[in-house]
């Protein structure tokens, strides 16, 4: 009983320290650690591989999904400012979340369901990370969503391949160059 009390006190202390630290720009935020996103990326890769194994026979979907474009042209990308990059990332994440949600509803395989659930929560967590980096959350309006750069996929492995590439590329670039993480080193 006493050990639980001690652990609770320590946790409270850590939380308090974390709150106090979050206001200080000089200390690098934990989310700036590239290992945070690397974990998500690794999970996405594992999911993609598992999906390919699961869906050898057929994971064809009856409907097509809208997924973001993952390609990054560094020449063009470097020219964009942070806002544009953030917008691109956030719209892509939104699209991905929606697509996973659609697939999750239509799939009955329990293994597939668990993987889909995991991916959905990961997407949600990444959006949270972006929010902590003082990047404003953005959701496209219905008119904007039509003009987004998207493409259509019709299979679940393809969906997860897109997810992996998106996380590895744009999301990671955004986070690694986030101003909140670089304010101390600038």
């Amino acid at each position, binding site marked *: 009983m006493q050990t639980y009390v001690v652990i609770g006190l320590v946790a409270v202390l850590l939380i308090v320290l974390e709150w106090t630290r979050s206001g200080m720009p000089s200390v690098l935020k934990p989310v700036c650690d590239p290992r945070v996103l690397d974990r998500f990326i690794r999970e996405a890769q594992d999911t993609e591989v598992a999906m390919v194994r699961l869906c050898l026979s057929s994971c064809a979907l009856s409907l097509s999904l809208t997924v973001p474009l*993952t390609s990054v042209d*560094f020449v063009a990308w470097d020219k964009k400012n942070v806002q544009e990059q953030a917008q691109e990332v956030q719209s892509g994440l939104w699209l991905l979340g929606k697509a996973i949600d659609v697939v999750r509803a239509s799939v009955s395989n329990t293994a597939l369901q668990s993987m889909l659930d995991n991916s959905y929560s990961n997407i949600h967590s990444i959006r949270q990370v972006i929010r902590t980096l003082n990047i404003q959350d953005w959701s496209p309006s219905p008119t904007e969503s039509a003009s987004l750069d998207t493409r259509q996929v019709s299979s679940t492995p393809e969906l997860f391949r897109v997810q992996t590439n998106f996380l590895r590329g744009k999301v990671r670039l955004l986070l690694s*160059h986030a101003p909140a993480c670089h304010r101390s080193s600038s």
Partner: protein
Amino acid sequence: MMNVAATEMLCWNAASLLVAVEPEDPKCFAEGMRDLTCFWEEEGSRSPDDYAFTYMYQETNEESSKCALTAQSVGGSKTRYICRLPSVQHFVPLDVSVFQDGRLIYNRNLLIDHVFLLDPPANVTVTQTGEQEQLRVCWLPPALMDMENSMMYEVEYAPTGSHMGKRESVRARSEIILHSLQPDTRYNIRVRAKPDGLSYSGYWTAWAPWVSMTTPPAEMDLLILALCVVISLILILLSLTLLLSYRRFLLKKVWPVIPSPENKFDGLFSVYGGNFHEWLGVGNRGFWWSPTFLLVEESPSPLEVLSEAGFTAPVPVHPMPFKALGLSKKEVEEDERTGGQDSVLMGRRKGKAHPHWVLEQLQSLDQPSVPCCELHTLEPSDTYVSLNYRSQQDSGAMSPLADISEESLPLQVLFESPGTPTSFSDLESVTYSSGSGEISSQSSLEYPYGAWPLKGPSYISMTVTDSGISTDYSHMSWGTTGLGDLAMAYTNEYKNKVPAPRLPPHGHTVYSYY
């Protein structure tokens, strides 16, 4: 933007690297974030126009693009065809096709961010850390943006001259400390890099050039030295304590005591300096009255005295002298029984019946052993003196005896008158009645052994053995019958220095008297 002309000749050893590790054709690699180089090698030397290189990104709906090819002759007969894409897109699959004369020969789908082949790490420096058996290796990460956190490195190090190199992997850091190196050894170190495979992937870079550094020499750690000194001191103390406590035991084992007969021979070494003969002359002779123990140079010559006098009664032998000499009464009686044939008489006479005087006489003979009690049987080679006494009832005139010189007559026996029973107080007192007596010496050789001429029961026979026995007659004194003067006259030193081969057991003195 890299110089296109320069890149053509850039690091074609990189191309040879790829040829070794990449099985697919065409081989493509990205040297930076904004380029892609693909090539393949063909036999012959055909024009690049015969080939068509098309590529298409998966996400674009455009038609495939074409890439301009350049040709390079390699190794004599081969030709290398190279395509450099003007712009690339990452994180999106790229589909590449090669046509030869309109015919598809190669097709490959790849991700450009997975085919990085970078330059080796630059500015590799090796320094000593200040600690033993350690070296620090530093290098510059690739200058590519966004690549710094995505690299992994491999460090190879080996002592100079050795072929067994060790490798260490490093992730995301551009320095490493090598441990457990040999002290005072020159090490060669080189580094290579590769994207870590999470965000970006690629091939191992070429090795950076070798860099050498010597490890610091081995130092004796002060703490270890102090501990060794303390432990050795403790061990020395322990061993000293053990040695001191078991000192005597160890001395006995290492240096055993040489046994010395000192304790058995009282005073032999301390007083007489080891002179055994001198030591024998004084004191502790009581221990050595064993006649078989020591060789005697001088022993009294046994004498058998044969008396022709008409002794009717055998003279009883006083038992005391026998006892004094250690003779047993049994032997004395035996001698009486044999009739004096084998009797042996000591060449000494005494007037007094004193056991101690007997001892003195015996000691004065300088003999180690007292004449013992064994009956001595005459050897054939023994000489004897038989004294023939013509009985003359003389009243003790000693005139004939006065003529006798010391040396001419070895022995003179005075016979007691037969009628007088003589009580002999000691063995050596032989009382003889006065009377002339002829002494005739006869060699025992004249008589065979055992055929002793028994001259009659009245004879007292004295046998003098000529066997190298020295007999000291210096202390002889005659019996109480008034022969004291004669005793003085008869100090006869009969010394025969030549030892006989068959020396009789010494000290055998048996007196038999008739």
